[in-house]
């Protein structure tokens, strides 16, 4: 096979990710919850707006369904979970932005501390809801 002047380099290249690093997971979950919350905020804004503009009767009917039906109660719990995760990891990112915790060990530690806080708050909220 004749050799050309320029090196004919293979296009094959792997895009393997670092799934064994907690910082990677923190970011992936931040993204997933973020996109989920975007979907929610768009839905919520449109639905609330339309319900309000539809007048008292329609609004009250829609809201009592959304806030009473067990299916939506479950979704609400998941929503809270997403908000807590995204918010707490978001605070972790804010700490990095002001220069706190920007080292391998510190960023891991901060992540776990916030996750424990998140689980506690989530559990407490679910308990409140069930009462």
């Amino acid at each position: 096979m004749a050799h050309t002047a320029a090196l004919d380099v293979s296009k094959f290249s792997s895009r393997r990710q670092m799934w064994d690093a907690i910082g990677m997971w923190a970011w992936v979950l931040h993204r997933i919850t973020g996109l989920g919350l975007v979907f929610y905020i768009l839905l919520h804004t449109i639905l609330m707006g339309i319900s309000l503009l539809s007048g008292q009767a329609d609004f009250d009917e829609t809201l009592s369904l959304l806030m009473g039906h067990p299916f939506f109660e479950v979704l609400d719990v998941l929503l809270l979970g997403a908000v807590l995760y995204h918010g707490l990891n978001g605070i972790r990112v804010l700490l990095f932005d002001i220069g706190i915790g920007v080292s391998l060990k510190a960023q891991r530690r901060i992540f776990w501390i916030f996750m424990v806080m998140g689980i506690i708050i989530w559990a407490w909220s679910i308990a409140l809801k069930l009462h």
Partner: protein
Amino acid sequence: MSESLHVKVFRFDPESDVEPNFDVFDVPVFKNMAILDVVMHIQNYMDRSLSFRFSCRIGMCGSCAMYVNGRARLACRTQVSVLKTRNITIMPLPNFPIIRDLVVDMTPFFDKWKAVKPYYMPQPECDEPATVKPDSNEREFIDDMLDCISCGCCYSACSMVATNSDYLGPAALNRAYTLIADKRDAIRVERLKAVDRSYGVWRCHTQFNCAEVCPKDIVPTRSIQNLKQRCVMKKFGIFK
């Protein structure tokens, strides 16, 4: 006592192969064996056609970076014992085009390296040597980041490099930082503008993958965070 390692090595020769595949070798172990010893043994005694890069063997040149058991590592500085298993899989670095076997094309990496003008530019009006005390705060912060041997491990670990082909990457940005943070350099502002791009510092989302794999224990994330701060402060009219 012959214990041996069960080694799977990525093979691909674009001149004769249509697809990559893995060759398996049983390599005898010796005390303090490093991954570089493993591939050298294979090349010397088992398959002369195995291609890989190495040079200094002591973690200074950055040539022998490879993807071993799921992580980018320097082959000469990674002891087999650290992997805690007999089963070893060696692949070329991710995020780089593959030339052959374990040899990757470092061109995109170095193109981005060059894009930040990675060399000190002296100030033209300086009559005397500029001094920054070696034990000063600013020196200490920069010092850690200077150890970069441009091995490419960080670049191969970064998810943003994987998805965005324009992203400058942790090594180039870290290098840019060492010069932007250096009071003596003449083109600091120009350099800051070069990294203040959507394909520059703003693509970093503080995953810390780069810090996880750096064989020199550099934390490019910290350099990039500092650069982001400087970009914002510059907008407010502050540049230190």
